[in-house]
């Protein structure tokens, strides 16, 4: 039987990673709403990607914290970790495009870095699920 203490320590990394990705999502939303309030196309793209990161990260954190077994925690990590990773990939490609920075390249760079951080932590969640929680890369 997997000791509860072991399980608790195994959950720490994915929960912490998903909280960091969640914060990145919030940062992207705030930047989009404040910097591009006059340009609806950029504003919506920032909000969409930011919301995707927030929702998927929150689902990861909730799924993992509620899991009663290693396998269930791993399944939550794999399912939503991939989504965090993939939303980050989409975001980073959008934020480096001139059309979506509209004369505010610094904002674009910051958002791209935030997306990049989400990619790294999404990947960390997936690797942790595979190596420490013992689930396949697709569940």
């Amino acid at each position: 039987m997997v000791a509860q203490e072991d399980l608790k320590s195994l959950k720490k990394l994915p929960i912490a990673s998903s909280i960091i990705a969640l914060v990145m999502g919030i940062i992207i939303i705030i930047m989009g709403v404040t910097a591009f309030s006059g340009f609806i196309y950029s504003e919506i793209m920032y909000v969409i990607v930011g919301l995707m990161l927030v929702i998927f990260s929150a689902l990861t954190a909730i799924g993992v914290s509620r899991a009663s077994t290693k396998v269930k925690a791993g399944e939550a990590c794999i399912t939503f970790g991939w989504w965090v990773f993939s939303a980050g990939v989409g975001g980073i490609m959008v934020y480096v495009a001139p059309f979506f920075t509209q004369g505010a390249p610094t904002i674009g760079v910051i958002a791209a870095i935030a997306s990049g951080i989400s990619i790294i932590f999404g990947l960390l969640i997936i690797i942790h699920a595979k190596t420490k929680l013992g689930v396949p890369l697709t569940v």
Partner: protein
Amino acid sequence: MEHVNTKTRTFFKETYKEFEEGELLMSSEEVKSTEAYPWKDIRGDYVLVPVPPWERRTLMNIFLVYTGVLSCLAVLWGGGALGMQGSLYDVTVATVVGDIILTVIGGLVAYIGGTAHQSTYGIMRHIYGWYGSWIFGVLLSGIPAWGWFAYETWLFGVMIHDLAPQNPICDIAWASLWGGLLMTTTAYVGYAGLAFLSYFTVPAFFVLVTAGFFAGIHFGGGFEKLWSFVPPQPVGLSVLITQVVGLYVCGAIITPDIARFARKAWHGSVAWGVQIMVLMTYYMIAASMLTMAMGGTYFSKAMLMAGLGLGAYFVAIFGQWTTNDNNLYSSALSWDVFIPVKKRILVLILGILGSIYAWYTGLTAGASMQPFIQFLVWLGTWLPPIGGVMIADFYVFQAYKGVPRSERYKMWVGKEIPLVNWPAWLAMVIGGACAQGWLMPASVLQVIPASVIGLVMAFIVYIILAIPLDKAGVSIYIGKIKINEYGLPVKEVSK
């Protein structure tokens, strides 16, 4: 030789161990059925035998695989075509109605796969008989899915060439070849390969398509232009609905290929319904709006204008890949029912042949796949009746026979399967003839989509034939065979 993914089996055993130790992960019924799993998967990927409990996936996994198949450029072009033929209001109504029809058809068929845990062609053995599963499997998926694989591979070459016309490896012919071989790799891995790519691609594809859509609307003149848009080739609402249904009705009928991996019978239906009603509706309407603004489905052009060059490559490569590997996978599944070769080998053969065909088409100046596409579209008229008979047999005829829903098409070693179910064959032919317009007035076909007519007529004819004949004591089956532990007839064992 028994083929089971070792890693997955280890994963299951650990799960089972945890169950024994008190941490319940699977129901006792599931564990019991696992202990009794008597099948040997000699072809790979459970082509001929039911999917075992340890290979079954979560609802989210099924949803993502379906979504990966949907997230492709074909659906965007389909939406774009609607944008040339109707106002924004008409396109929206047609998309929603068409998607409801697709949800119902696909949901009903997916449930069959989730209950029986067998592929579409495995299920057909119970409905059309052993020989029927060969013929209708090849008609439904063997030829069309391979054809679409070749066509979309060629299309991939065209798109890559548009993005980088100067690069020699982006020449249409060569891009078709390497693109086709790339797509073959995930289909070669099997279901796990399809799932892996979908996990990776779907959210990013959604983000990038949305970005391309907004850029296109902006460069095309903004949202204001959409409200005053007059379609250059206006058609009626029913024609638009027909197009929406026709775009994906074949996909709706082969939903068991994915749904068979679901842990619960209803997972496949829910996953299918959500992705159709939410994502397909979104993609179709967004693409039609882009067409209204820019005069064509110029996603790549809009993305390049916005500086989304990398995103354009991502959408082109992964958008085609997640769909086309599934085309190849489904095609191989149907051929493998009667060709005694491992599924992976069959995927390789079909993938290489499809890639070469696409390469040749790209290489030959003036070559066009148009006649081949017309043939595939013609097949599309005749395929929905296959699903109509499947739905009629599972939900009506089996219920009339008193078989509990969870027991329908259940497989066991030594089970007798008919060689031919002649009312099913007849109903399918009559349904197809109605959809073709041979047995149905043209006025009806103008109002109701041909694919829906074919499906409904096959459904009705099968019930009208099968139930009275059974009541009269006349067998609807011709001949029988016994199934062994390999899922093959007792005499036909090829390892």
